[in-house]
C-alpha cells in the first residue's frame, strides 16, 4: 500500500483525531491530533493489512510557530511506511524553558519509542506523558535546558568542567579556586531560587512527573544561563 491507501484505511477505520494527508514535500505525512496518536499507532500495528511492526523514529521538530513530533513507522511484511505528525502551536509568550509540549507516550505500544522519547525530552524538552522512565538520556542528569531549542544559549561550564574554548584549564586554577567555586555556586543557587527547574526523577521511581504539565513559571523567573562569551554567532544559535 502507498500512503494514500494507508490514509484511506485509517480514516475508514474511524480512528479519532486523524487529519489530512500532506503530499507537498518529497515525503508525505499525516497530521494527527495529540490525543489520537496512540489509537492510530495501535491500529497501524495491529491491523493485519497494515502490520506496521517497526517504529523507526520519534522526532521533535521546532519551527518558528510550532513544535511537531513526527513518527516514522513501517512494515517489514508489506514493505510500506507512513509518517505521522503531531503539531503543537507555540504559545504567545514564553520561550525555551517554560514551554514543554506534552504528547502521550507510545513506549508501551512500541518499546523502541522508549529511548527515542527520552532523547526528544532531553534535547528538545518535549514531554511524553505516561512514559515509564522519563530521564535525560544523552546529557547529564543535572543539565540545564534543552539544547536543540532554537533559543538555547550555550553554557560556559557544567559542574566545574569548562566548556568554553578560552576557559582556564582546571589544573591551572589557583589554590583558592575551590573557594571561588563555592561562592559562584552559591550565587548560582540564589539566581536559580524560585525557578522550578525540572529535576530528573529519582532512579527507580516508576512515574516521574505527574501529568506532564509545563511548570507554571513566569518569564521573569526563568533561569538565565550565562551566554557564551564567544563571538555573536556562538551566543544565539540562529533561528531561521
Amino acid at each position, binding site marked *: 500500500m502507498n500512503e494514500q491507501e494507508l490514509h484511506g484505511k485509517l480514516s475508514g477505520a474511524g480512528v479519532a483525531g486523524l487529519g489530512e494527508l500532506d503530499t507537498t514535500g518529497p515525503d508525505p505525512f499525516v497530521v494527527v491530533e495529540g490525543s489520537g496518536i496512540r489509537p492510530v499507532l495501535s491500529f497501524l500495528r495491529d491491523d493485519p493489512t497494515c502490520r506496521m511492526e517497526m517504529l523507526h523514529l520519534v522526532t521533535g521538530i521546532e519551527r518558528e510557530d510550532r513544535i511537531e513530533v513526527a513518527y516514522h513507522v513501517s512494515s517489514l511484511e508489506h514493505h510500506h511506511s507512513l509518517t505521522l505528525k503531531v503539531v503543537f502551536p507555540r504559545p504567545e509568550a514564553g520561550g525555551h524553558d517554560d514551554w514543554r509540549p506534552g504528547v502521550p507516550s507510545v513506549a508501551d505500544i512500541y518499546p523502541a519509542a522508549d529511548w527515542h522519547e527520552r532523547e526528544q525530552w532531553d534535547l528538545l524538552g518535549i514531554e511524553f506523558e505516561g512514559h515509564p522512565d522519563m530521564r535525560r538520556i544523552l*546529557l547529564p542528569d543535572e543539565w540545564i535546558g534543552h539544547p536543540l531549542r532554537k533559543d538555547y544559549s550555550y553554557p560556559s561550564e557544567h559542574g566545574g568542567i569548562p566548556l568554553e*574554548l578560552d576557559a582556564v584549564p582546571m*589544573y591551572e586554577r589557583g589554590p583558592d579556586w575551590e573557594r571561588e567555586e563555592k561562592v559562584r555556586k552559591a550565587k548560582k543557587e540564589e539566581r536559580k531560587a524560585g525557578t522550578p527547574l525540572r529535576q530528573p526523577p529519582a532512579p527507580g521511581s516508576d512515574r516521574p512527573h505527574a501529568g506532564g504539565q509545563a511548570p507554571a513559571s513566569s518569564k521573569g523567573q526563568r533561569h538565565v544561563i550565562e551566554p557564551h562569551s564567544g563571538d555573536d554567532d556562538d551566543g544565539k544559535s540562529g533561528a531561521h
Partner: protein
Amino acid sequence: MGILNHALPNIGPVKAVDTAIGWGRKSSIWPMTFGIACCAIEMMAVYAATFDLDRFGAGVPRATPRQSDLIIVPGTVNAKMAVRVKRLYDQMAEPRYVIAMGACVCGGGPYVKWGYNTVKGVHKIIPVDIFVPGCPPRPEALMDGILKLRDQVGRDAVFARREQAGKEMDGRYAAAS
C-alpha cells in the same frame, strides 16, 4: 624516591642512575585501554600488526589506570565524560603521561563552535604532554607522538637536581595553556 626527588647534585653517578631510570621508563610505556571515539580505532590500528606499537615496548595495554603509564585520550571529551577522564587520570600512578589524540581533544576540533557540551580540548581537564592533531591522526602520527614522548621521558631527571627545574616543568605543559 619521594624525598630524594630532584635533591641530589647533578654529578656523574646520579646522572647515570637517572639515565638508567629514564631508559627503563621510556622503553616501557604501558598505555591504558581507553577508547572514546573515532581516534580509538586508529589507536587500535597502532597496536595492530601493521604498525605494532609493541616494538617500542609500549604494547602492553593495561585496562586499569593503576598499572598504566600513559593515557591516550582518543576522541571527543564531553561534559559527561570529562569527569571520568579526570578521575582516570587521578587514579594513575606517577609517573604518568597524557597524549591528546585528535583534533577534538587538542582543542575542540569540528565540534568547537556548535558543540554545546564538548570540552574544547582535554587540556582543560588534565595536563597534556603531547598533542597529536588530526581528525583522526594517522597511525604514523600517533607513533610519532609516542616517540616524542619517549624522548621526553628519557631525558627526564629523577634524582638529580634540575637546572631551571621549574621552567622545564612549565615547558612540559607549555603547549597546554
